[in-house]
């Protein structure tokens, strides 16, 4: 249970020349890489941060880099590839040894600069987006294809970049939660709670029981409507309309419940720093509990039908495989990583949320294919329904915080979103935000999606994509 005790944040300052040694050593100690980013320092300097975690503690390695140049981590920590490319494009940081440094956010570069060259008989490229055929977020995919088979996929996101993190800087800590929320509707609660936790850690505060319960309730309501949506989308990916509409109906019910319980279909404006005003009396929790039980039963009936639908099942097995090794190497998180056999879920190491008996689950076989990712969603729906049932056994009172470790310049929040581990790092300047960085489960998983697509047929991509169901908005920010 040590993982559930409050985790101190260890801030380790290093010189630019020791950056790589310190980060690789943290990784060597079994600490998990959870993100790397740069923020503008004063005048000429850039400040680098890398986040690592172990079950006992969170470590932020910080570095003031006057030369804007450090050794790369990508050979030792491949999961840092997008992070380094982002820091390069935004702040001009050179990562020596990261070759070629392909642009990620910078769209003003020739095609050859950001795509992987492919040569050979009959190789060709298929360009898709940023505007897609369906109602989908904007992003560009460049498939390198032979016949119908995908050799390689280059993903170009950040079309939706609004500059939310930079725009949030300078505002009071309490009001900047709006920027975390706006980064993504489908992960609004996760991102807001991660931000609020980060602020509270920097302010030396820990939530009381009611605040923990309130946030856990919101997080699980968010997961339920997202997972229902994802199963609906997977059915749509194979053109199975009855399944698509059955799960779309359940998602609609879940969102109507959100509105009744918390006042908004996407649970907007429900998360505050250091407090919660949400209350639910005995009648309200009983009604919500009853509706969730009905929803759970409806899902169980529909899920059983999906098992007996050959035209659906025949399309899921062995498609879009992400092996356990690749998932681990690329830093995949959430249902995608668990469906590949990585038994890790931040809910089992969340001392500031209410998950007393939570244990992660993985889909039987954990083959890392579309089938496993579909089953994983169903297993996690059951878990969420159980957590919600326990949470709603008692009324909910307003929540507050109490003093804990003491104040600090930095704070880190870590929350399991419907798409996986999301971290938020904040730096404060008194009561104002100096900088924030949000690294969501989607951001972590995009490279894994591209990797899992290679080797499959091009027409399978919509299905593989939907089995990952990553957000563009909270990657682009």
């Amino acid at each position, binding site marked *: 249970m040590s993982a559930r005790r409050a985790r101190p944040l260890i801030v380790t300052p290093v010189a630019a020349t020791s950056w790589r040694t310190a980060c690789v050593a943290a990784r060597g100690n079994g600490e998990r890489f959870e993100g790397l980013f740069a923020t503008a320092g004063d005048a000429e300097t850039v400040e680098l941060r890398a986040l690592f975690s172990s079950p006992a503690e969170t470590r932020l390695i910080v570095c003031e880099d006057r030369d804007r140049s450090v050794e790369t981590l990508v050979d030792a920590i491949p999961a840092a590839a997008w992070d380094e490319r982002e820091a390069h494009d935004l702040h001009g940081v050179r990562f020596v040894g990261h070759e070629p440094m392909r642009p990620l956010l910078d769209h003003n570069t020739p095609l050859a600069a950001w795509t992987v060259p492919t040569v050979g008989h009959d190789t060709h490229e298929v360009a898709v987006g940023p505007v897609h055929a369906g*109602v989908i977020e*904007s992003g560009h995919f460049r498939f390198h294809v032979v016949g119908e088979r995908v050799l390689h996929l280059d993903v170009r996101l950040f*079309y*939706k*970049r609004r*500059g939310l993190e930079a725009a949030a800087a300078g505002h009071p800590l309490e009001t900047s939660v709006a920027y975390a929320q706006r*980064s993504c509707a489908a992960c609004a609660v996760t991102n807001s709670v991660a931000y609020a936790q980060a602020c509270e850690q920097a302010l030396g505060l820990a939530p009381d029981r009611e605040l923990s319960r309130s946030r856990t309730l919101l997080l699980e309501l968010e997961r339920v409507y997202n997972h229902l949506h994802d199963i609906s989308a997977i059915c749509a990916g194979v053109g199975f309309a009855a399944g698509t509409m059955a799960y779309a*109906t359940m998602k609609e019910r879940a969102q109507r419940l959100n509105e009744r319980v918390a006042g908004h279909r*996407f649970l907007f404006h429900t998360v505050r720093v250091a407090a919660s005003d949400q209350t639910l009396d005995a009648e309200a929790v009983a009604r919500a509990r009853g509706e969730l039980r009905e929803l759970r039963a409806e899902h169980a009936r529909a899920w059983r039908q999906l098992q007996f639908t050959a035209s659906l099942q025949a399309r899921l097995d062995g498609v879009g495989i992400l092996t356990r090794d690749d998932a681990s190497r690329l830093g995949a998180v959430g249902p995608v990583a668990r469906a590949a056999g990585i038994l890790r879920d931040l809910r089992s190491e969340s001392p500031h949320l209410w998950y007393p008996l939570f244990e992660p689950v993985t889909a039987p076989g954990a083959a890392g294919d579309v089938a496993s990712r579909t089953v994983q969603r169903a297993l996690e729906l059951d878990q969420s329904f159980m957590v919600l049932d326990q949470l709603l056994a008692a009324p909910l009172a307003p929540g507050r915080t109490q003093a804990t470790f003491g104040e600090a310049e930095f704070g880190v929040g870590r929350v399991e979103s419907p798409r996986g581990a999301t971290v938020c790092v904040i730096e404060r300047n008194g009561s104002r935000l100096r900088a924030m960085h949000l690294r969501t489960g989607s951001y972590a998983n995009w490279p894994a999606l591209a990797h899992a697509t290679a080797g499959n047929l091009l027409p399978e991509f919509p299905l593989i994509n939907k089995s990952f169901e990553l957000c563009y908005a909270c990657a682009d920010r």
Partner: protein
Amino acid sequence: MFVLLNQLRRVRRDIAASPPVTRSSLALRHVDAGSCNGCEHELTAAANPFYDLSQYGLSLVASPRHADVLLVTGAITTRMHPALLAAHGAMPEPRLVAALGNCALGRNLLGQPDQLAGVLEQILPVDLRIPGCPPTPAAIAAALIGVLEQRSRGG
């Protein structure tokens, strides 16, 4: 499969959405010009059995070349600005532009000014405004059905 279909039939019977009043139709194309994905979720939800846009002759089409209405969501980012203009330019005339959601209407925008291209009204002629953060599927359906009804009255 039959259980699912029966379940859906029950939903349809329980909801009893109001029947279409016109025989016309509109083909809709969506462009996400920098949203938080909330408007996309709700636009998709407007096609679920509770709202069932298609029974009113409202369908989402894959190409702007087939569309009567361009539904634009999000703060218009500088990076989506060219794609938005290209999609609008590809539509046959007459064409309508709908600002879907508060961001597209320029309300309570968040972001760095240098990342945003400006309010939709300054970029394209806006014919239909659907406020909300995000607008509910009911509001989206009502606004689009309103266009059909206006047209059937010759408006």
